[in-house]
C-alpha cells in the first residue's frame, strides 16, 4: 500500500499538472495562444507517475502533448507557461511555443512530428552510454506514434545495441479520430517489444501508483544495462485532440463516460483515503495548485510578447550570440 506521504505527493503532482493545463485553456480563452493547443487532461497519472523515477541527468523527448512530461522532468513551469503563451521570457523566447519546448538544462525537448521523438531519445541514450553515464533516455509517444517508421528504426537500434532507452507509449486509444483498435495489428503496443528484444510492460495509465511502479521498473531495467523498454500506459483523453476539435468521431456521451469513469485524480481518492489522506486535504491540494497556477498565469500574461524586430534572430549561432 502507498504511504500517506507518497500518496499526497502523487496526488499533488497530478493536481499541479491538471491545474497547469487548465491554465493553458484559460490562456487560450484569453487569446494568449494563437496556434493549436493539445492538453493532456485525463492523462495526469502518467506524467505524475514518471516524475518520481526521472533523475536530473536523464532525458525526456516528448510529443505535441508534452506539458506533463516537461513538468515531470523538472522544467520550470513559469518558463514553460510563458513559452506556451508566446512570451519573450518563455523557455524559448516565444519562438517555439507549445509544441516545441527545448530545455537543455533539464534534458527536455519535444517535437510536433508524430514518432520523431523516439530517434532523438536514442541519441541521448547513445551519448549516455558513450560517456559512461548512468542516465536513461525516455522517448514519449502516443499510440499513434507507435505505427511510425521512426519508432521502429529507433527501437531496432536500441535493441541491437542494448541502449538505456525507455519508450513510453501513452495509449489513449485515439490518434486524433483514428481508433487504435482499427489500425493496430496487435492488441497492445507493448507486446511488440519482442521484435526489438526489448522488455515490454503494460500498465493502467489512469492509476498513478501503478504507473510510478512500472515506470520505475522500466527505468531501473534500462539504467542497469538491461536494454530498452517499451512501457505502454493506457489512458483516456478528456478533451478533443486539440482545442477546437469538433470531435465528430465520438459522441458527447462517450466523452462524458470517459470523464466519469477514468479520471485519474478522482480514481485516486480511494487510495488517498486508504492512506489516511482525507477528502478535505485532497480538496485543499487541488485548490492550492489551482490558485498557484492562476497566479502564475496572471503573471505570465503581464509579460511582454517578443519584439518583432528580433524575428530573424537565433537561426544561426552568430544570431544567438548577438
Amino acid at each position, binding site marked *: 500500500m502507498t504511504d500517506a506521504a507518497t500518496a499526497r505527493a502523487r496526488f499533488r503532482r497530478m493536481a499541479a499538472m491538471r491545474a497547469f493545463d487548465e491554465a493553458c485553456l484559460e490562456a487560450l480563452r484569453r487569446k494568449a495562444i*494563437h*496556434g*493549436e493547443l493539445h492538453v493532456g487532461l485525463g492523462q495526469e497519472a502518467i506524467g505524475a507517475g514518471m516524475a518520481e523515477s526521472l533523475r536530473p541527468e536523464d532525458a525526456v523527448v516528448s510529443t505535441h502533448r508534452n506539458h506533463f512530461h516537461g513538468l515531470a522532468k523538472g522544467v520550470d513551469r513559469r518558463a514553460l507557461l510563458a*513559452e506556451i503563451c*508566446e*512570451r*519573450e521570457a518563455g523557455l*524559448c523566447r*516565444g*519562438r*517555439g*511555443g*507549445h*509544441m*516545441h519546448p527545448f530545455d537543455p538544462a533539464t534534458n527536455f525537448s519535444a*517535437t*510536433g*512530428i*508524430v*514518432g*520523431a521523438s523516439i530517434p532523438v531519445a536514442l541519441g541521448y541514450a547513445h551519448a549516455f552510454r558513450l560517456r559512461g553515464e548512468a542516465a536513461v533516455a525516455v522517448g514519449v509517444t502516443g499510440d*499513434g*506514434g507507435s*505505427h*511510425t*517508421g*521512426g519508432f521502429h528504426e529507433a527501437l531496432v537500434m536500441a535493441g541491437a545495441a542494448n541502449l538505456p532507452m525507455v519508450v513510453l507509449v501513452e495509449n489513449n486509444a485515439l*490518434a*486524433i*479520430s*483514428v481508433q487504435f483498435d*482499427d*489500425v*493496430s495489428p496487435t492488441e497492445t503496443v507493448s507486446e511488440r517489444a519482442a521484435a526489438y528484444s526489448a522488455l515490454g510492460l503494460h500498465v493502467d495509465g489512469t492509476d498513478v501508483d501503478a504507473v510510478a511502479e512500472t515506470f520505475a521498473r522500466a527505468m531501473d531495467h534500462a539504467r542497469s544495462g538491461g536494454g530498452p523498454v517499451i512501457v505502454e500506459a493506457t489512458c483516456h483523453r478528456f478533451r478533443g485532440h486539440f482545442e477546437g476539435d469538433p470531435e*465528430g*468521431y465520438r459522441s458527447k456521451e462517450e466523452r462524458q463516460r470517459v470523464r466519469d469513469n477514468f479520471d485519474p485524480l478522482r480514481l485516486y481518492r480511494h487510495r488517498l483515503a486508504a492512506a489516511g489522506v482525507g477528502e478535505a486535504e485532497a480538496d485543499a491540494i487541488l485548490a492550492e495548485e489551482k490558485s498557484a497556477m492562476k497566479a502564475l498565469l496572471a503573471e505570465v500574461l503581464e509579460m511582454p*510578447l*517578443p*519584439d*518583432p*524586430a*528580433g*524575428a*530573424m534572430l537565433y*537561426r544561426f549561432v552568430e544570431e544567438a550570440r548577438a
Partner: protein
Amino acid sequence: MSAVAERANDRLAMPLPATIAEAIALEMERDDTILCLGEDIGRAGGVFGTTTGLQERFGSARVVDTPIAEMGFAGMGVGLAQAGMRPLVEIMFVDFIGVCLEQVYNAAAKIPYMSGGRQRMPMVFKTAGGCIGSAAQHSQCLWGLFAHLPGMKVVAPCNPHDHKGLMAAALRSDDPVVFIEHKALLLRKGRDFRHHPDVPDGAYTLPLGEAAVVREGSDVTLATLSASVEHALAAAEELAGEGVSVEVIDLRSVVPLDADTVAASAGRTGRLLVVDEDYLSFGLSAELSLRVIDRLGLSGLRQVERLALPDVPIPAALSLEKAVVPGPELIADRLRQMAKGV
C-alpha cells in the same frame, strides 16, 4: 428568394472544405478507381472537413483511415497507381512530408520517366500548407520544395471555384499532382472570398498550369498564389486608394508555372513583385522572376522584387509571425515602396 439566388446563397454559406469534398465525391462517382488514403479522412471527414461524407458514401475501402505511417501509405498509393487505381493520398499537413518524401519524389514523380512512359502514375498528394499559428513545424507551404523535384505538378488554388475545378483536374490527370490547400482558406466560407466564391454545381475541370489575372492594373504586376492572393487583393485595393494601380495574378500552380501570363503583364507595367508565403530563397520567387526576365530581357523591366517568408522557421509568437509571414500590410508596404521607385 428565387431558387437560383437561394442556391447561390447556399454556396456562399458553404465552407471551402465542403466544396473540396464535393469535388472529390463527383470524381469518385465518375470513376471507381479513385480512392482516398490518409489520417482522419474517413470517420472524421478530415481535420478540416475536406473529405466529409466520403467514407459514408464510398465505404472504408475507398476512403481509408490510415495509421500515422506516411511512408507506408504514400508508398501504398504508388502501388495502387501501379495496380491501375487512382489514389488520392492525404498528407495532413505539408510539413510532415519529411517522413515520406521518398515515395513522392523518388517513386511517384520519377516512375513515369524511369519506366520510359510505360508506367503511368495517376496520383494526387493532397495536403494543407500555410500559417494559421502553430509555429515552425506546422505552418510551412513548401511548394518550392516539390517544384524543385521534377516529375510532379504542384497546384495551390486560392478560391472555391478553383479548388473544385483544379481538384477534379488533378484527379483526372495521369501525372502525379501535389495539391496544396491553405489552412487559412480552409477555415473560410464561400462568402469570405474576394475572388470567385461562386461555384458551379456539376463537375468541371480547370487546366493545370494557367494563371489568372484576378485584378487588372497598370502600375505594378503582383504575382502570387494560394492565400496570398487574398492578401494581395486587399493590398491592391488599399493602394488603389493611394493612386497606385496593381495588377494581381493568381498563378494557381507552381508546376507548370505560367510565366507567360506574368511576363505579358509585367511587360506592360514594367514592375514585378512576386509574393510567396513559402521561403524566400531557392524557391518560387526567384524562379518566376528570372523566367519573366528571360522573356522580357534585362531591359524589359524597371523593377523586380520579391516578398516572401525571409528564410526563417515560423515563430510561435504572433508578434513575430506577423513580422515574417507576408500579409496585407507587408504587401501594401512593399507596393508603396515600389511605386515610389523608378
